[in-house]
């Protein structure tokens, strides 16, 4: 908790400056100083609210903190808001959502025959798979099948099974998040299938051929990503087969 220590030292350092200064003047002349104190106030405000017992030094400062609301001046507020807005890191970067990588991974799924780059799977990203799972459930809902529970249950069991199998088959291991992320991304073609199922019935010959093609597409993409990320050679079809079984179960849900 190095961040915690940083805050701790800052807290002790600037506590005296808070005491010394007037409520109205927070030393905005120096931006750095402002930031320190600003951060200080934020920290103490946050810490004071959830657990007063944790930082006993909070008690004398809370009174000072809440006082400045009355001395709030709109003119300086704009300058304050302006400088804080410039200083903040991009929200998406802080949340860890990298749209470029998400788009790259989606493109990798959509082109099953193109060779994949193994390094894109280095960060575990569960935002995309979550969206795809919900979209799949939504298209099933449009067709009148309320089966979110089955989707989640099957994806959990399938992810667990693939995690065990890939750990046993590959030289390097995989993390569970990576497996879940890849399997979730490759669910995208299945959404196409279930949206077809809303419009046409999938139980004829055309439906069977389409289902088989989509299952093949999903499992080829998933196995291609796994192979390139884990550097397994000569095992693509072996990885594709359990993926095909998993996506086959999803297809069963969409069709029947």
């Amino acid at each position, binding site marked *: 908790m190095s*961040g*915690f220590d940083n*805050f701790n030292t800052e807290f002790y350092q600037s506590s005296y400056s808070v005491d010394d200064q007037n409520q109205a003047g927070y030393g905005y002349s120096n931006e750095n100083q402002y930031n320190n104190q600003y951060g200080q106030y934020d920290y103490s405000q946050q810490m004071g609210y*959830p657990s007063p017992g944790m930082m006993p030094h909070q008690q004398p400062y809370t009174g000072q903190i809440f006082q400045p609301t009355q001395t709030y001046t709109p003119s300086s507020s704009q300058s304050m*808001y302006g400088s804080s*807005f410039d200083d903040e890191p991009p929200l998406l970067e*802080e*949340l860890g959502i990298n749209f470029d990588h998400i788009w790259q991974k989606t493109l990798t799924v959509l082109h099953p025959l193109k060779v994949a780059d193994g390094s894109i799977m280095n960060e575990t990203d569960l935002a995309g798979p979550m969206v795809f799972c919900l979209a799949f459930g939504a298209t099933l809902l449009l067709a009148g099948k309320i089966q979110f529970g089955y989707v989640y249950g099957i994806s959990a069991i399938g992810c667990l099974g693939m995690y065990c199998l890939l750990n*046993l*088959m590959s030289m390097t291991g995989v993390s569970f998040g990576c497996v879940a992320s890849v399997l979730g991304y490759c669910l995208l073609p299945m959404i196409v299938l279930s949206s077809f199922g809303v419009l046409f019935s999938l139980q004829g010959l055309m439906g069977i051929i389409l289902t088989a093609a989509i299952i093949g597409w999903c499992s080829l993409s998933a196995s291609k990503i796994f192979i390139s990320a884990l550097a397994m050679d000569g095992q693509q079809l072996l990885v594709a087969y359990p993926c095909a079984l998993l996506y086959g179960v999803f297809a069963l849900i969409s069709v029947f």
Partner: protein
Amino acid sequence: MLFDDTSTSAMSAQGSYYTPGYNVAGPPTDARGGVNNLFSDPMANAAVMYGSSLANQGKDMVNKEISRFMSVNKLKYFFAVDTRYVLKKLMILMFPYTHQDWEVRYHRDTPLTPRQDVNAPDLYIPTMAFITYILLAGTALGIQKRFSPEVLGLCASTALAWVLIEVLVMLLTLYLLTVHSDLSAFDLVAYSGYKYVGMIFSVLCGLLFGSDGYFAALAWSSCALMFFIVRSLKMKILTSLASDSISTGSGARPQVRMYITVAAAIFQPLIIYWLTSHLVR
């Protein structure tokens, strides 16, 4: 300004004290450390670390328990397969009569991995065949309108139980009759799991071609499997002959070993019929 921020998001001011600090308290203190800067609030940070340490503890405990019963490295040997091996092995399982050399090759006392030796047993095919069998049973029951999750679970656990029984009986027999072979438990599970390939073939033919197709496929895969088991186990059980004759001859006689091998082979078609007939009515 601090309060300007909270008032702009006044709707969430009561709940989220983290937003203003989230934006501003980060930069002055430390560099963009990526995920570590995700929660500038130490409380959330502490919660995340506690949660992840709990997950790690759970994972370590699971690993310790599993490694008490079986070594993962030995298990990895059985999964070191590639596509070429799997295809050749499936060919041998369905048509073993033209395969010449049944000897498992060694490399300085350790058996070669399945990648390098097509006679080595593996666990990938039995596992995949088992799961495919369960899904196929579900489909067959669904086609006959007899599907329900309970029946599927019953089917799966019956098959698993029979595999366990067969492996335990083989182990017990080999131990009681003092047959010294290098067949480990995983080897026996592998050989016992190869029958699922025959089962899948029979059920598929039964679904596609009706009852006649089922019995034809059953006969074909039973013969092939019996041949395969006899040839493979003969290599492993009977080759310890030389060492036993050097000792006081307290090992089992060759006839007993032959009986064991043949009994294991006869068992296969019986169990295939038992587990698949109710799927193809």
